[in-house]
Each structure stands twice: as C-alpha cells, then as structure tokens.
C-alpha cells in the first residue's frame, strides 16, 4: 500500500487533488453498501432467533450463538453435501483442465484435418447457455442410467468447462515460439512428450488461474445439479442450501449460519488466490 503520504496526488504533482479526496470518500461509501450484506449475514448467523426478532437488525450479536452453526450443519445435512461437493470438485477440476490442455495443444500446435472447424465449434460453446438445455441434459444423463451419480454430473460439467479453457490455453500455446517444440520434434520426441515436458510446465501460471476459476464455478454450480442430482444423498452444497432455505426459512440464525458455511470455502479460496482470478478472467476477455 502506498499509504496516505503520496496518495491523492496527480502524477508529477505535489499538492493534494481535492477531487481525488471526494472520489475516495464516495468509494468508501459504496464499499460500505457493498459489505453491508456480508456483515448482516454474519451478525444474524450468531444471533438466537429471539434476538433476531427482538432487537435491531444492525445490532452486533451480544452473546454469540455458535450453536446455530452446529444446528444448521446437522439439519442441513452439511456433512453429506460438503462431501459430495468436495468429491465432485476434486475430480472434475483437474481432469477437466487436463483434457482441455491436451485439446488446446492439439488444436494449436498440430496440423489436424478440420482443425480450424473443430476450434470454431469449441469456441461457439464458450457462449452457449446450458440453462436452455437442462431438460435434454436430464434425458441424456438418464439414458445412460447416471441420474443421481457423481459420474452423471461430472460428465456435463466437463463438457461445459472445456470451451473456455480450450479458448484460453489455445491462445497461450499459440504464442509459444516454434523453435521450442521443433527442436524436440527433430530429436524424435513425440507430441505427448512435448506436451508433458514443455507445454504443461511453461503454462503453469495460466493453468493455476483456470484451476481457481473452475474450482469456484464448479463449487457454485446449481442448475445442472438440480436436474441431475435429485436424491438428497447426492446433493451438493448449493442444492443443500436451497432446500434448507425452503424448509427452515423462519429459523433465521441457522439459515444465516448455513449461508456462511456455504459461502466460506469459495471466499477463502478467493482471498488467497485473488490475483489469479483477475488474470484468469482478463486473459480471456481482453488481449492487448
């Protein structure tokens, strides 16, 4: 942080710019509005129901009701939903990234029949709203007998993760100098070896960014899970939260504890790996 000493000055000027001070105050006000929902949720999650109904909504909790968390964990079947979400995410995210990277390598570094057409087909998928295909997805997964199974949800997740990742990695691999792989090819290395030994290691920063973005997307996914995971023993966290809301919506303390527990993992990942989010997002959309 550059601190207040040098802040509020236009580059090259020494005096404080009053417009920047006004701007900063305005930003702080907006920031307070933005953070208010989080504060309200955390406060409520630590209040007993009688306190929620009897005291001001803005008041911080006086005695901390940690029991809300234990109660919501048990009634919301969090041990099941957290486990399911964790298994699905740990399998889907690395596997999806691997097949996307393989495909991106093939499409950008090997001359393939119809390679250009395949790339465009995949690119088209980056904009495809899967929300319009929920019913046919259900029918398809059902025809494989995979409703209520982890495989049944992971396969569509993989399919809808491929386009964006291939698009980003294709752009990245395309900029690797030819000499790097040609020398290895002349030495008799196969494309499999070049991919594993050269391209995977040099693309680690991009892979990390995509990994984080995909972790959050998979962890948060709701609509596909809603049609494919119908039995409550197979539910993921978002499905569990939705059901908790409809069953116990007047149990304010526990409901908010359930929200906090659902949101916390992604928030922690985000706060730790912040810079990857920005690079993963902007490398796709904006290319200078």
């Amino acid at each position: 942080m550059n601190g207040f000493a040098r802040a509020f000055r236009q580059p090259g000027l020494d005096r404080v710019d009053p417009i920047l001070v006004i701007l900063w105050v305005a930003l702080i006000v907006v920031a307070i509005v933005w953070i208010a929902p989080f504060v309200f949720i955390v406060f409520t999650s630590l209040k007993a129901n009688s306190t929620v109904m009897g005291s001001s909504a803005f008041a911080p909790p006086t005695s901390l009701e940690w029991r809300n968390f234990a109660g919501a964990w048990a009634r919301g079947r969090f041990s099941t939903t957290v486990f399911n979400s964790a298994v699905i995410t740990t399998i889907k995210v690395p596997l999806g990234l691997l097949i996307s990277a393989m495909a991106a390598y093939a499409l950008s570094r090997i001359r393939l029949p119809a390679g250009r057409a395949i790339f465009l087909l995949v690119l088209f998928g980056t904009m495809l709203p899967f929300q319009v295909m929920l019913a046919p997805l259900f029918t398809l997964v059902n025809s494989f007998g995979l409703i209520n199974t982890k495989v049944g949800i992971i396969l569509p997740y993989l399919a809808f993760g491929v386009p964006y990742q291939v698009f980003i990695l294709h752009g990245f691999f395309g900029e690797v100098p030819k000499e790097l792989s040609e020398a290895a090819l002349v030495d008799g290395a196969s494309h499999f070896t070049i991919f594993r030994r050269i391209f995977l290691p040099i693309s680690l920063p991009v892979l990390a960014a995509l990994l984080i973005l995909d972790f959050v997307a998979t962890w948060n996914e709701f609509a596909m899970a809603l049609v494919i995971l119908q039995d409550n023993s197979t539910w993921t966290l978002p499905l569990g939260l939705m059901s908790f809301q409809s069953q116990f919506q007047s149990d304010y303390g526990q409901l908010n504890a359930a929200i906090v527990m659902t949101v916390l993992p992604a928030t922690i990942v985000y706060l730790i790996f912040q810079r990857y989010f920005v690079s993963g997002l902007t490398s796709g959309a904006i290319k200078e």
Partner: protein
Amino acid sequence: MSIRISAPTQGLVLLAPALLVYCVFAVYPMLDVAALSFMKWNGLSPNAQFVGLANYVQVFTQDPVFWQAVRNTVLWTVMSVIFPPAIGFALALALNQNIPGRSPLRALFYLPVIIAPIAVATIWRWMYDPFFGLFNATLTALGLQGLIKDWLGDRNVALYAMFIASVWQTVGFSLVLFLAGLQNVSQTLIEASRIDGAGRFEVFRYVTLPALRPSITIVLILSIINSLKAFDIVYGMTGGGPAQSTQMLALWAFTQAMQLGDFGHGAAISVVLLLITISIVIPYLRWSRTHRETNP
C-alpha cells in the same frame, strides 16, 4: 520411443477426450432440444410423437406466461446492460486513481462475483424479509415506515428487487474487466496530452475512452449473454412468482419440461432463447476475430 505414430494421429488422441465429452454432453443436447421442440413428449414414455410446429404455435398463442417471461427477460437484459456496467465503469475509473486502499476495495467489490448465485439469492431473500430483513429495518430506522414493502411478494416490485441483488453480484465482474482495460491505456499518451494542456475531461474523452472501446464492447456483450441465461437467482429468490411476475425464459423452459412434464413446450421456449443468444453471439465472435487480427 520405438513406435512412431504420425503427428495427426497423436493430435487426435490428445483432442479426443475433450472433443468427445463436449460433443456428447454439450452439442448433442443443443441439437436434441431443437428436435424435441417438434415433438410431443412427457419425458417418460418410450416414444415421442412428431407434431411439427404445434409446440411453437402453442407457445406463441396459448401461453401468456411465455410473453410475460419474454417481457421480463428483455427488461432484465436491458437493465443488466445499463446498470452493472455503468457502476462498474465508474468504480473502475475511481479505483484507477492515486488513492489509498485500492486493492482491498477492488477485492471487496469483486467478492460477490465468486459467491454462488444461489447463495446470493438466499442472502437477499433474507435482507428483503418483510419483518426482520435489513431493508425494512433500515427504513424503520430512518423513520420511513411508509416505504416498507414485502419486496419479493409485491408483483410490481419483485423484479426490480431481484435486479438489485443481481447488480450487487455482477458489478465486480464489469469492474475488473474495465480496470484491466484502463491499465492498458498508454500512460505516455495521457502524459503527453496533459503536457499539451488537455484537462481532466479532455484526457478522458479523447484518450481513455477510445482506448477502452474493446473493453466496453466485451463487457456489454458478456452482460447481455449472462443476463439472458438468468436462472439460479430467479429460482432461488422468487421461483418466478408472485403470480409469474418475475418469470424468465430459462426458468419457464425448465418449469415446462421438468416440472409440468411438457418437454416439447419447454424445448420450443429453449429454442427461442437459444436463437436470441446465437443472434448476439455470432456477430460478436466475428467482431472479436477481426478485431484481434487488426490489433495483434
């Protein structure tokens, strides 16, 4: 490496897993939804019956909720293209100045983007709670009891109440893209124009804004596409109610097929939404390719 496989074969082996899963679980359902839109099918019986355009006729002439969903989706999209990008743009301009605490502020504004939409729906439902929620409590504290409402239960207000939750969630997305665009604006150009006597407004108007044009296009297109597929937030906050006043196309297609068992009708709605999306996506992909080729 004793056996040499030809390069294209190696390429196909590398490509196969992703391409296979993508074609089966993303491309096929899209074609299937188009096929289903010409059929009468309840989702369970072994054979679907071909009915031609009957589903479309039914959707367009006998389904008032469809038109309500069209109006809401259009309104939602128009609002989503105006407000979150405008707020994100203003915040990005402010955050791009020499002020303290830029990184924590940026992190805060982006935080709602990474929260599950279904959790955002739950959070805001609770804030809109007519009795104990933050909104009505704030109004009471300010002495404005007259403005107290059942925000999600009032059919004239629910859609806008839901939209405010969506603004909270999506502003950070525009903000980060604009901020990245701003950081690509040439500093030398800005300084040169300052030296030439350009004021704050002229620099913005003639240097910053033209340089941001690609970012602006991208943000607007992505906002349109994301708003057309609004599903989670509607499902979680209102379920389309009260009295279908917040119904949207994606949710209505889902409801018809998965809850009312009319797969043909739902598919016809999906196709309408798909065609709208494609009519925006294809020109955009064209534009982004030519743009990339002219500005390497």
